[in-house]
């Protein structure tokens, strides 16, 4: 049974992305999907950790089911976020999908070394971008079983 059918909750995604254009594109791409996905957005690495640890201005934050993580971020970069997240007993269970423009071997290798769950290149084309978002949704919310916290 997939997540959407088995759970009464709406699927929640945390998008860690500093580029407003990408944020908006992701929102647009998600509009095309059949199920309603709740998207939270933070725009740098520190905010991402604050959100997940429910610190500072994010004390009311709700734990996401998956995280879409850009690598090139202000303040704390994506790798640093991964490192802290995957060292935490509970938060490490949240699948992290690295979604970035970097196709550099050392970025890919580093992301997986710090236990990224998958690594996806941002397509240049909007249709391809929408397709990637759709695939993420299909795979993580309609195919796999996610942990219950």
């Amino acid at each position, binding site marked *: 049974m997939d997540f959407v059918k088995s759970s009464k909750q709406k699927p929640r995604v945390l998008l860690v992305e500093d580029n*407003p*254009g*990408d944020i908006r594109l992701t929102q647009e791409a998600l509009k095309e999907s059949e199920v309603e996905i709740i998207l939270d957005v933070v725009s740098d690495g520190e905010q991402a950790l604050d959100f997940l640890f429910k610190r500072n201005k994010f004390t009311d934050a709700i734990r996401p089911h998956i995280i879409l993580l850009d690598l*090139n971020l*202000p303040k704390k970069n994506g790798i640093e976020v991964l490192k802290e997240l995957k060292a935490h007993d509970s938060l490490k269970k949240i699948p992290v999908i690295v979604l970035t*423009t970097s196709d*550099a071997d050392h970025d890919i290798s580093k992301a997986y070394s710090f236990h990224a769950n998958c690594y996806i290149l941002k397509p240049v084309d*909007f249709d391809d971008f929408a397709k990637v978002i759709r695939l993420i949704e299909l795979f993580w919310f309609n195919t796999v079983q996610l942990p219950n916290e």
Partner: protein
Amino acid sequence: MSADLIPNKAFFDTYNEAVLIFSDKQQVIYINPAFTYLTGFGLQHPFEMQALSELLIPDTFEADGLFKNRAYLSFSKKDGALLKAKVSESDIVLSDQSKGKFYTFNLLPGLDVITGGERKFYELADASPAMIFLQDENEQAFYFNNSWLTYTGKTLKQQQNLLWKNLVHPDDIRILEDLAPTITRRKSYSFELRLKKSDGSYRNIFVISTPLLSEDRAFAGYMSSGLDITEVKEAQNQISQLSHALKQSTEELDQFTYVTSHDLQEPLRMITGYIQLIQKNIERGNLANLDEFMGFVLGGASRMQMLIADLLHLSRVTRKTAPFAAVNINDVIHVALSHLSKAVTAGKAEITCENMPTIMGDTYQLVSLFENLLENALKFRTLDTLSKITISAGQKDDKYIFQIKDNGIGIDYKFHKRIFAIFQRLHTQAEYEGTGIGLAVCKKIVERHGGEIWVESEPGKGSAFYFSIKNNS
């Protein structure tokens, strides 16, 4: 005439070492039979006496006492073969009470009579570009070839009388001392040291020394040949410096290409993505968000433009370097501020500047440096507060230290290093626009001026950027 002047002539006639006596007029007045036996010269004919004086190799043999005590002498036998001997000189009172000079000749072991073959050796040695010298079994040098003498600017005689080690650079004497055990074992050895040249300069000489053996295979000294390798060494140093610089610049370039392609792709993706989205929405008849989407397209384009302009600037700073000249920093700041006049007015900034020194540097780069730092001070200002920027300079050791201090938003300690790397940004575009190139440019410029750049800052307490510039004047 002459023989009568010799006291104890009968003794010298039977003496088994070769003896030669000069008069006070520096003419040969006596040679004993042993000398005739050794050299082939006799005094039966006055012309032979004359010939003897002339045949003694002029550079090495003068009757002026220069080879007092023990010295070495090479001269021609009557048959043309070269003779090599140790010579001892002493004064002698002649029968008429005039003062003469008395010389005895001891043939060198292993090198005693220079036959035709050995003569060829000396000719060859003198024609060789290598610096060759010979030492006897007591390590005393008795022969130096032309190349050596040209290098040291000494005559053979002067060189024979001067310990050649006196020409070795004081710091390199220990190299010879370290070799002592090898020399005692009479093994071949090689070494490299600095040797004083005729012009007083020291050059690097590489020397190989091999033992000489006499006919009965006994150790007879060393033959050494040296080459001036100063230029080779300099070239080597230069190559290793260049290859180090090349490696560094290749690494920088790799990093640069990677980051650049990544950062240039970002706005391009925005342009392409949003144009497609607009197209799609138009096809669907959904015209609601077109303005907003168009904004992203234009934003991408202008960001692309900004990136390219900054990259060009960075490339210009590193590529188009001018030779250093005296630069008045007061003028530099004046020019930098004129470029920023808009921002200065917009930020309602109050800028105070001490009197600045004149330093050696690249004017264009220094303007860029101050412009970037001042631009940051103006950009990252505390909202609703009057920007206060102070520029000051001081001196520490051989460096000038400049400070640009603001009362802006400040920077957390953990970012104090990262901000100087290319494309590293602490803020989103929405908060503060920028490309992340400015401080990378500053770092490059400061490094080219032999200095360092750093920041002292705390969030909310303003920032003070410091950089040092080597004082070359």
